[in-house]
């Protein structure tokens, strides 16, 4: 007996999601089939809202449900600092620290020459036009501490330096809870270079 069309279709759709195989898709589908109608409706709503209600903040390009986003709208935040991150998700851990009171800018990627991703594919033009208003005094480069992240940071440094804005990079050193024995030489050299009086 062939599966009813709505069931087959949901299985197919779920199957497209990352790390959901055909078996997991079937299991989820049959779970939803038996779940209370309001629960299913809530899930469907949540999924629809994801695309319908979310927009990019016209200032920092973070994903938001109101433009400008809550961070850019907040009067108490320091408008002279911009922290540059690779992806919207990188803002979350920075916000969790509660140490940073400035604004953000999302690049949506990093320069990855061997994948054919260059500066034109990133939101760099948008960043430069934000810096042109003369209000910003410091740019914090918070791209990931790996080869592509460093490449992007160095390239941005080259673009921003002529504007006379202070450019800083997140410290690169030993992770809290880590172990010196396993630290690689690059991390350790950076940690030594950036050592601080205590």
């Amino acid at each position, binding site marked *: 007996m062939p599966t009813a069309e709505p069931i087959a279709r949901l299985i197919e759709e779920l199957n497209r999601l990352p*790390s959901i195989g055909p078996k997991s898709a079937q299991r989820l589908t049959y779970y939803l089939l038996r779940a209370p109608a309001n629960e299913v409706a809530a899930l469907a709503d949540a999924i629809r809202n994801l695309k319908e209600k979310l927009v990019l903040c016209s200032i920092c390009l973070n994903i938001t449900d109101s433009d400008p986003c809550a961070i850019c709208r907040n009067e108490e935040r320091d408008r002279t600092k911009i922290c540059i991150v690779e992806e919207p998700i990188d803002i979350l851990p920075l916000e969790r620290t509660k140490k940073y009171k400035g604004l953000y800018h999302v690049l949506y990627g990093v*320069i990855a*020459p*061997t*994948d*054919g991703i*260059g*500066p*034109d594919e990133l939101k760099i033009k948008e960043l430069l036009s934000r810096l042109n208003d003369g209000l910003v005094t410091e740019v914090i480069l918070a791209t990931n501490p*790996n*080869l592509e992240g*460093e*490449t992007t940071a*160095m*390239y941005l440094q*080259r*673009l921003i*330096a*002529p504007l006379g804005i202070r450019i800083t990079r997140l410290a690169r050193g030993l*992770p809290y*809870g*880590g*172990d010196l024995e*396993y*630290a*690689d*030489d*690059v*991390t350790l*050299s950076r940690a030594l270079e950036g050592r601080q009086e205590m």
Partner: protein
Amino acid sequence: MTASRTYQTEAIILKRIKLGEADRILTLYTPELGKLKAVAKGTRRPQSKLGGHVELLTHSRLMLARGRNLDIITQAQTINNFLPIKDDLERISRGLYIAELVDSFTGEHIEDRRLFDLVLATLHQLSQAKDCEPILRYFELHLLDHLGYRPQLQQCTECNSTLKPEANFFSPSHGGVLCHDCGFHEPVARPLSLNALKVLRLWQNCDYAAARRVKINPELATELEQVMREYIKYLLEKQLKSTAWLDKLKRTTQPK
């Protein structure tokens, strides 16, 4: 007798792609096993003990466990991290180009110790170089030489006559130089200046130390780059992706 479940090898990390939550698939170039792909688990977490030891363009000693599909890296220790490359935008970009070249021209599991040594020597040279371009050209020439695409620079590839000391032509599809007369009738051939020919000949037959002593003006450097780029594009039947970035970088002026 079953093969041991783990093995050790040196490797240069050529490429990384993200896998799942925090893992990566690495493309490695090794002296005994040629190119191979392996999984590095958890390397995207800050506390990863593999982390920086398996960063791109790093020369590391690795311990791998045989997996069902891909082998899994269990331990890693850096031999040389080539920090001078990673601290410099110009050098990083050239390093990535070298990695892409090696990845594009090699198949998996084909042992080639001499190529490994060449790549390693090239990264060492790149760490010290002020002008990176001659190093790239030298590497391209010797990589092609090694793979059996050594460009013919002594005789005309069409009529076999010895080349005269004058402007000749270079034809990617002939795999070398065409003399003035033959090249003239070959629409795909590009002009090759006498100086460019001389430099290519010298580089083909010297070591890195000698290659670096050659003084090249910007015009000649551009010509050599174009010749090699066209030849490589012809051989691979595609343009390497990182060339776009190299071009972009050249157009971005350095802050003084």
